[in-house]
């Protein structure tokens, strides 16, 4: 720990330097030591380990503490560094192939390895696989979510799960800090802070510094942790919109919830048809439509003043749309598609996917969005297609979830992603044909047709595509044709 330093953030100041200071997580820490011990003689079978778990539970700390305890040199590459193939090769590759000056061991820490796949880091994952395969030095990865790490990498690593800390352990950590800072503290106060952190000791320490710094005594009453439950929920807001008459009340209620206007409007949108009838519903939708126009202005012009009008239209505007009282249908959360269709994030997602497809087909993002994306969307319900598409275009988890209309955490999405990564790492992604290999177009397929925007040639392609799509829909989702399809398929449009 760096306790001699006074002007440093507490969570850093009290970062354990040795494994023995790490609270809780005994099992993973000893697993980590066991893996490290194997390195004493020669490189073990699995030359890398991955520490994964929620934020603030000691993963990064353990990685550095291990190096400290064993007298290893440590070198770190994290998400704030560029992690393209070249960058990874340069830093980690070099370090992994050469011994330290003294002939000791050098630990390579790849912090936050769950995030290497963004567009900015293209090729990084594949390079990492190569480096792990060829390293002569131990490699430690950390990640919040194992699903963000590709199968290829996971196969090469010893997985070590870190668990969220118990409130008791966190309270104990906080007590030590208080002692060190010369703050007398109330056990109840510490427990409250600890519980509020839900297992994340870093945020508990931050909260402690927030409430205790500069005090000589910390009393229970000093710990005002805002209880989320006391705030209005989205359902209270919906009630004020659909069941009550006060326009100001409905608007004001939205200030107390932490829901973005984009998200709120999709809640109202989802429930409106079930709550109002006839002309009231029509007028309600008119209000939502106006709200949406204002939201569009926020997005496009960064004109944040427009938020207040959007907010008023989607709440008060819907309040006044009712001409009578309606009995209570239950409020439903917006379906995934509805939610996705409206957020700015979704639009970015759509454009990002179109961009990736466009890149591979050498057409503009706009062309891909208007002319290719609809087909892709129609076809991803076929799982094999989805996998190949993901590998071909380099889609990430969020993008796959968007295309398949599933939640990001859904098993389906994760497995598609992983299989795609495997294809990608095996280097066969380059050979996949997404828009080719059907009809007269032969191997060139739409890839060329789409790229070639001269009017004579490409006319056929979209027509053919549509036919393919129709054929596919006729086949429906029965099992049998799908099996047949699996065998014969040489391209993603070759059914």
């Amino acid at each position: 720990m760096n306790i001699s330093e006074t002007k440093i953030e507490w969570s850093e100041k009290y970062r354990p330097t040795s494994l023995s200071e790490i609270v809780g997580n005994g099992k993973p820490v000893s697993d980590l030591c066991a893996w490290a011990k194997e390195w004493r003689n020669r490189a073990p079978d699995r030359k890398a380990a991955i520490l994964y778990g929620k934020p603030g539970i000691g993963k990064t700390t353990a990685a550095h503490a291990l190096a400290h305890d064993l007298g290893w040199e440590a070198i770190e590459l994290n998400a704030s560094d560029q992690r393209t193939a070249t960058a990874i090769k340069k830093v980690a590759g070099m370090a992994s192939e050469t011994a330290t000056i003294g002939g000791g061991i050098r630990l390579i820490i790849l912090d936050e390895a769950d995030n290497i796949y963004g567009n900015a880091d293209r090729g990084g994952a594949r390079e990492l696989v190569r480096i792990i395969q060829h390293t002569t030095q131990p490699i430690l990865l950390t990640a919040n979510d194992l699903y963000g790490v590709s199968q290829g990498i996971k196969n090469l690593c010893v997985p070590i799960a870190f668990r969220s800390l118990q409130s008791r352990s966190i309270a104990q950590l906080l007590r030590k800090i208080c002692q060190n800072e010369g703050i007398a503290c109330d056990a109840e106060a510490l427990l409250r802070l600890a519980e509020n952190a839900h297992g994340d000791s870093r945020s508990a320490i931050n909260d402690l510094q927030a409430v205790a710094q500069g005090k000589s005594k910390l009393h229970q009453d000093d710990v005002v942790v805002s209880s989320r439950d006391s705030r209005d929920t989205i359902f209270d807001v919906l009630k004020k919109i659909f069941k009550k008459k006060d326009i100001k009340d409905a608007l004001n209620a939205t200030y107390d919830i932490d829901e973005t206007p984009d998200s709120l409007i999709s809640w109202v949108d989802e429930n409106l048809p079930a709550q109002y009838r006839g002309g009231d519903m029509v007028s309600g939708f008119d209000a939502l439509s106006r709200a949406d126009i204002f939201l569009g202005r926020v997005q496009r012009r960064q004109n944040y003043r427009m938020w207040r009008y959007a907010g008023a239209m989607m709440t008060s505007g819907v309040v006044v749309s009712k001409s009578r009282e309606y009995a209570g249908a239950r409020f439903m959360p917006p379906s995934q598609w509805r939610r996705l269709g409206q957020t700015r994030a979704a639009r970015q997602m759509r454009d990002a996917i179109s961009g990736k497809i466009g890149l591979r087909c050498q057409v503009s993002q706009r062309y891909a969005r208007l002319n290719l994306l609809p087909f892709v969307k129609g076809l991803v319900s076929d799982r094999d297609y989805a996998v190949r598409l993901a590998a071909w275009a380099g889609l990430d988890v969020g993008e796959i979830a968007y295309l398949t209309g599933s939640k990001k955490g859904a098993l389906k999405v994760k497995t598609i992603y992983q299989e795609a990564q495997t294809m990608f790492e095996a280097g066969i992604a380059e050979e996949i044909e997404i828009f080719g290999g059907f009809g007269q177009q032969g191997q060139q397929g739409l890839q060329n047709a789409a790229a070639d925007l001269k009017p004579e040639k490409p006319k056929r392609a979209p027509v053919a595509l549509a036919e393919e799509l129709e054929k596919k829909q006729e086949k429906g989702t029965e099992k049998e044709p799908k099996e047949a399809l699996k065998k014969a398929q040489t391209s993603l449009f070759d059914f």
Partner: protein
Amino acid sequence: MVGQTNTIGRLSSYVRTENLPHLMFTGPPGVGKTASAVSIARELFGDTWQSNFTELNASDERGIDVVRHKIKNFARTSPVGDADFKIIFLDEADALTIDAQSALRRTMEKYTRTCRFILSCNYSSKIIEPIQSRCAVYRFGPITDEAVEERVRYIATEEQLDITEDGVDAIKYVAHGDMRKAINALQSAAMLDATIDRDAIYQITATARPEEIEKLISDAYKGDFAESRRKLGDLLTKQGLSGEDIVGQIYRAVFDVGDIPDRKKIELIDKIGETDFRITEGANERIQLEALLAQFVLSGGIYND
């Protein structure tokens, strides 16, 4: 998350001990998130505050490269003068892409000897969990009129200022949940006159009196376009208000104007929003506001010739 009740007290204890954790301020616009960040920096760094405080608006530069290059370089250079660290204020941090937020994670930890982050955002749900874990989170709710009043009265007593009852009300109206504005108004008015009353407050803050705005609206709604338009001209030229201020005040007032049914009010709010948008797009705010008044006439359905 730490409750808002004692936010100011907490923030000033950081200043007293000259140390702070990374902070995240969440809440609607105009409740003093930026103001708090600036005042922490001013008090912490004194004369060198401007060199040690960097403000980046995340909505201008939202990508991962900003984090990897610009922010990282700011973070690792040493503070100026005898400051112990510098502060990077990331305004509208919820506009950062997920990738960019991820890249920020380790930067926040590694350069803590030279730098602290203050993130400001409207919605905490848009900030990824690992970033929230690295910050003490403060939620800024809209500041209540009562809190403003209490603060104003406290300062007035301390500084022995003479403030009238309607002066206090005027400050509440002007501040509209922004404590900094309230205190500024009080301070400037105190320099102007021995007694602080409503007129002094409205004058010094270039704000129209609420009843003037209400009259502007109801005149138009009742069909007296000429009178309403004359009043508008006064506000713009004689009182020197900006179109943006006026449209904001009209928006606030319209909820409370008597004699207009709720349905009509919503219709008007829609028109007000449209006008607000057109003011930023257009060249002449007077024309846009006149057009708005004409819409009010139309809504009221009475035409005086």
